[in-house]
C-alpha cells in the first residue's frame, strides 16, 4: 500500500509541475511549443535529455539482460552508448544548435532537407522514418506504465487502467505546456530516476554483494559465463559486437533526442550537457551491472528477471522500493511525453507546413495538441489490443535510428558528392534490409544484428547511386554547415 501512496503523490507532483510550466509561460508561438524558445540552461537540458533517453528498459529490460547475460550486455550497451550516441552529441550538438538557431530548425528533416536543396517528399520521407522508429517505442512504454501501476498497487490498478491514467496525465500537461512542460517534468523525473538508480544499485552492492571487490571476485569464480563473452544464450562475439554498435549508437538519431541538441540557451550550455551525459550514463551503468551481478550471485533462480532489480530492493527497503517504482514511472513518463511531443511537431511541421499550407501560431499549436491526443490514443489502443508483437516491434527503434547515420554524417561533415537520389535510394535500401533481416525467418544473418545490415545497405547504396546521379547539395547549404564550425 505504501508503494501506491508514494506513486499517487509522485504523479500528483508531476502533474502539478506540468500544469505550472504551462501557466507561468503560456504557449503563444510555434517556437514556444516546439523548442521552448531555445531557452534551457545546461542542467535543464541535461536532465530533460537524459530523462527522455532513460526508459522502462533502464530499470527493467537492461538489468534483466545483465542478470541473464552479465558483462557482455554492459559492454554492449553502456560502453557503446557512451562512445556512440554520446560521442555524437559531443561532436555535433553545437553545430546543430548553431544551424538550428540560424534557420529555426525543429526536426531532423529541417536540416537534412535544407542541405539537399528542399523538396517536400524528401522531408516527408524523413518524417515517416521517425514515425517508424518512435511508434513502437511509445507502445512499449505505455504498456510498461500499466505494468508499473499494477505492480505498485498489488493488482488493485490493472494494466489497462494504469496505462489509461498515464495516457490522460501526459496528454493534459503536454497539451497545456508543450516542450516547456515536458522539460520541467523531465527535470523532476530525471532527478528521481537517477537518484533511484544510484541509491538502489549502491544499496544492493553493499547489502547483498558485500562490496565491489567481493562481487567481482565471486562472480569470476562462480559465474564466469557472466564475466566473459562465452556465447552463453547466443551472445557470441559477432552478435555482442554488432548488437552493441547498433544499440549503442542508434538512439541519438531519434527526433526527440535531436531536439535536445537544439534547445540550450547558449553554446556553453550546449557543450556542458553533452559532457555530463557522456560521463553519467557510464557510471550508472557500471553501478547497475555490479548490482545485477550481486543479485545473480545471491538469487540465481529469479523467475521474472525484468523485476529482479526492483524486487531485490524491496527485500531490504520497502520505502526505497516505493521510491524506485516512482523512478520507473518517471523514466516511462519522461520518454513518452517527449515522443508524443515530437510526433506532434513532425506532423504539423514536417508534413502539414512542408506541404505548403501556411499555419498561424495558434493553428500550429492546436494541430500539435490534436496530434498529441491521437498519438497517445494510438499508442494506448495498440498496446492494449496487440501487446504480443510489441516486443518484436520494440526491436526496431534503435536499429532504424542507427540506419540513418550515413546521410546525417554526410550532411554534418559537408560532403558535396552525396546526392539527394543517393540518400533516398540508401534510405529505401536500409529500410528494406531492416525489414528483411529484422525479427522473422531471416533475422540477423551470420549472427550480425540487423541494424548493422541496414546501415551497410544504406551506406553502400547511397555511395553507389551518388556516383551516377547529379542532385548535389547547393553550395550555400554546404557552406552554411562548414561555417557553423564545431
Amino acid at each position, binding site marked *: 500500500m505504501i508503494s501506491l501512496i508514494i506513486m499517487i503523490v509522485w504523479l500528483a507532483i508531476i502533474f502539478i509541475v506540468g500544469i505550472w510550466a504551462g501557466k507561468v509561460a503560456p504557449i503563444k508561438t510555434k517556437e514556444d511549443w516546439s523548442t521552448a524558445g531555445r531557452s534551457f540552461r545546461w542542467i535543464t537540458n541535461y536532465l530533460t535529455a537524459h530523462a527522455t533517453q532513460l526508459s522502462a528498459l533502464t530499470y527493467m529490460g537492461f538489468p534483466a539482460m545483465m542478470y541473464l547475460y552479465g558483462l557482455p550486455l554492459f*559492454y554492449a550497451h553502456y560502453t557503446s552508448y557512451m*562512445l*556512440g550516441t554520446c*560521442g555524437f552529441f559531443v561532436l555535433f550538438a*553545437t553545430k546543430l544548435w548553431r544551424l538550428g538557431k*540560424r534557420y529555426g530548425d525543429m526536426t531532423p528533416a529541417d536540416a537534412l532537407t535544407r542541405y539537399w536543396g528542399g523538396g517536400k517528399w524528401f522531408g516527408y520521407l524523413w518524417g515517416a522514418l521517425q514515425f517508424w522508429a518512435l511508434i513502437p517505442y511509445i507502445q512499449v512504454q505505455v504498456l510498461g506504465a500499466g505494468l508499473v501501476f499494477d505492480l505498485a498497487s498489488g493488482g488493485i490498478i490493472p494494466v489497462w487502467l494504469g496505462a489509461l491514467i498515464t495516457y490522460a496525465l501526459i496528454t493534459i500537461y503536454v497539451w497545456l505546456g508543450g516542450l516547456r512542460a515536458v522539460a520541467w517534468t523531465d527535470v523532476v523525473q530525471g532527478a528521481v530516476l537517477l537518484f533511484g538508480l544510484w541509491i538502489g544499485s549502491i544499496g544492493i552492492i553493499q547489502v547483498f554483494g558485500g562490496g565491489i571487490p567481493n562481487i567481482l571476485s565471486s562472480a569470476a569464480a562462480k559465474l564466469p559465463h557472466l*564475466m566473459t563473452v562465452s556465447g552463453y544464450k547466443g551472445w557470441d562475439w559477432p552478435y555482442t559486437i554488432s548488437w552493441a554498435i547498433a544499440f549503442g549508437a542508434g538512439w541519438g538519431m531519434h527526433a526527440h533526442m535531436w531536439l535536445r541538441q537544439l534547445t540550450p540557451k547558449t553554446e*556553453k550550455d550546449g557543450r556542458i550537457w553533452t559532457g555530463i551525459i557522456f560521463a553519467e550514463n557510464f557510471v550508472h551503468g*557500471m553501478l547497475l551491472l555490479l548490482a545485477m551481478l550481486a543479485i545473480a550471485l545471491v538469487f540465481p533462480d529469479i523467475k521474472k528477471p525484468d523485476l529482479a532489480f526492483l524486487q531485490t530492493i524491496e527485500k531490504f527497503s520497502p520505502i526505497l522500493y516505493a521510491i524506485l517504482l516512482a523512478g520507473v514511472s518517471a523514466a516511462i513518463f519522461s520518454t513518452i511525453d517527449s515522443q508524443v511531443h515530437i510526433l506532434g511537431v513532425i506532423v504539423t511541421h514536417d508534413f502539414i507546413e512542408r506541404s505548403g499550407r501556411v499555419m498561424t501560431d495558434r493553428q500550429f499549436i492546436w494541430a500539435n495538441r490534436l496530434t498529441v491526443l491521437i498519438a497517445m490514443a494510438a499508442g494506448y489502443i495498440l498496446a492494449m489490443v496487440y501487446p504480443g508483437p510489441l516486443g518484436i516491434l520494440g526491436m526496431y527503434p534503435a536499429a532504424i535510428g542507427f540506419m540513418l547515420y550515413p546521410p546525417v554524417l554526410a550532411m554534418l561533415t559537408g560532403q558535396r558528392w552525396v546526392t539527394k537520389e543517393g540518400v533516398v535510394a540508401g534510405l529505401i535500401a536500409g529500410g528494406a534490409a531492416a525489414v528483411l533481416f529484422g525479427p522473422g525467418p531471416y533475422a540477423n544473418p551470420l549472427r550480425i544484428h540487423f541494424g548493422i545490415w541496414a546501415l551497410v545497405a544504406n551506406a553502400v547504396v547511397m555511395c553507389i547511386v551518388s556516383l551516377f546521379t547529379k542532385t548535389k547539395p547547393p553550395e550555400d547549404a554546404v557552406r552554411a554547415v562548414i*561555417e557553423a564550425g564545431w
Partner: protein
Amino acid sequence: MSLPKIFGLYLIALFVLTYGFGWAFNFPEAFWIYNLIVTPIISIPVAWAYLWAIHKKYPGEAGRP
C-alpha cells in the same frame, strides 16, 4: 588534422580497442578491468578536454553562421 576529426577517430579507435582487447583477452578479470576501469578513465576526461578545447577554438560568435 582538425580537432573534431582527431576526436572522432579517437572514439572509433577506442571502440576497436575495447572490443579488440575483449576478444583477445576473454577472461573475467581482464574484461572487467578494461570495461569498468580503463575505458571510462581514458574516455571521460578526454571528452571533457575535447569540449574545453573546441570551445576555446570556436568561442561565441566565431564560427557561428
